[in-house]
């Protein structure tokens, strides 16, 4: 597939923090499914360590941003760079050409994602779920991988549940296993796709706490799609409001979430709070 590329897309500073070159950088990214344009010319920079919350109505393109950032879907137009490296392109004498699958696999390894539906491997125990990428992606010896996996599970409060299968765990516990699993490869950018939306209300808190602790303890960049407004206020450095495939408002949470300028943002927040 041929992409239209903006060759001038040099490293830019993140508007929110100005903390050096962006770790994740999207330029003029567009994505359609059939006739429906999901994202329309998005520019986005996320600085190292920056936590960005993505809000907006369903179908506005926020989940697609995450899927693009980890290379699950390919944009029709534009470029995506992670830590300076193009996800879908290779530089060839100053020009960009479509990268090999191997290149894309390499680059996406610095990105981790936690899904709304957990997507745990149901036939494996919690420990085996976390061990799987350690053994098969980075080739750690089994005992070492097991030790590390157990450590990660202890960190999300599941030290007593190592041998349980997903079906034997609550939704909140399953999602915490999924978080531990995606942390296993020590990604530099973590994506959270409505990680509490599939949970019973009483289980939301335990998962948000784990994400919050991660946000405060690590220097990972995070992109968090969420409807939990108070959570976003608490951990985000910056909030992006999406509507019909565009970022219509962005800024610190104190501004976007507490004193939004755009009528569409105000309307959306009102609808969320009245839920």
């Amino acid at each position, binding site marked *: 597939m041929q992409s239209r590329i903006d060759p001038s897309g040099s490293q830019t500073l993140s508007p929110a923090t100005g903390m050096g070159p962006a770790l994740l950088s999207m330029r003029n990214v567009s994505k359609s499914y059939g006739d429906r344009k999901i994202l329309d010319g998005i520019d986005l920079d996320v600085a190292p360590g920056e936590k960005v919350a993505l809000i907006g109505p369903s179908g506005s393109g926020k989940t697609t941003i995450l899927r693009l950032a980890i290379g699950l879907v390919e944009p029709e137009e534009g470029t995506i760079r992670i830590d300076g490296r193009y996800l879908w392109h290779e530089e060839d004498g100053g020009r960009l050409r479509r990268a090999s699958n191997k290149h894309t696999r390499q680059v996406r390894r610095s990105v981790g994602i936690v899904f709304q539906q957990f997507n745990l491997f149901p036939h494996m125990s919690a420990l085996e779920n976390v061990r799987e990428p350690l053994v*098969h992606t980075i080739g750690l010896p089994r005992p070492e991988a097991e030790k590390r996996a157990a450590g990660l599970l202890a960190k999300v409060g599941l030290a007593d549940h190592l041998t349980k299968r997903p079906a034997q765990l609550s939704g909140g516990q399953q999602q915490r296993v999924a978080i531990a699993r995606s942390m296993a490869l020590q990604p530099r950018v973590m994506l959270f796709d409505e990680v509490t939306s599939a949970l019973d209300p009483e289980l939301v808190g335990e998962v948000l706490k784990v994400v919050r602790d991660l946000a405060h303890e690590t220097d990972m960049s995070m992109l968090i799609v969420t409807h939990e407004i108070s959570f976003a206020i608490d951990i985000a450095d910056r909030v992006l409001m999406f509507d019909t495939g565009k970022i219509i408002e962005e800024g610190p949470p104190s501004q976007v979430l507490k004193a939004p300028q755009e009528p569409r943002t105000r309307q959306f927040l009102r609808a969320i709070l009245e839920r």
Partner: protein
Amino acid sequence: MNSFGWDWSYAISTLPDLFSGLKLTIIATFFGSILAVLIGLVLCLVRMAQIPVLSGLASFWIQLIRGTPLLIQLYFIFYVLPGWGLSLAAFATGVLALGMYYAAYAAEIFRAGIEEIAPGQWEASLTLGMPIPRVWTGVILPQAIVAVIPVLANMVIAMFKETALLSSITIMELLAQGKSVGSIHFRYVEPLTMVGVLYFIVSYTAARMIRRLEGRHAIQN
């Protein structure tokens, strides 16, 4: 002995011969099933892998096998191939024909099982950077195979009954034994009825066992 009645002592006297036939029927089903599952899995994977030419061939092969009667395939291997220099013993022919015929069905069963796996399993594996062969062997196939075990088991029962066709290529399985006993005594009522009863007992018992296993599986989940 009158020709319209039922002679119990004759019926019972046929059993040793019928049991030896049943034994052969079960052995043919056993090896046929192993062959069907192995070839079926390979056919399914080759077809799904979208390899140029090869996947198309696998697809065509499945259609060819499913679109012709097993009896013709049996005759083809037994009577036609020797003319082209490839001759197999009758029993090997029977097992091979059963295995290849049901492999085409097994391939479809595996495909259905694989397609049932939630896309999220692929997405999780890919975003974790796992190599594609490991995704198949560690994530997709273990789930798909467990899911289709009851369907495969029902396929084996169907194969068990279809082994009666092997009598047409001189294999002394259950039906052939019944016919042979009948021809010796010029009386077919008892032996052929007993043959039917034996097929029924075995396949009914097997079907009940599968049901039980399925039930237990459902409870566990």
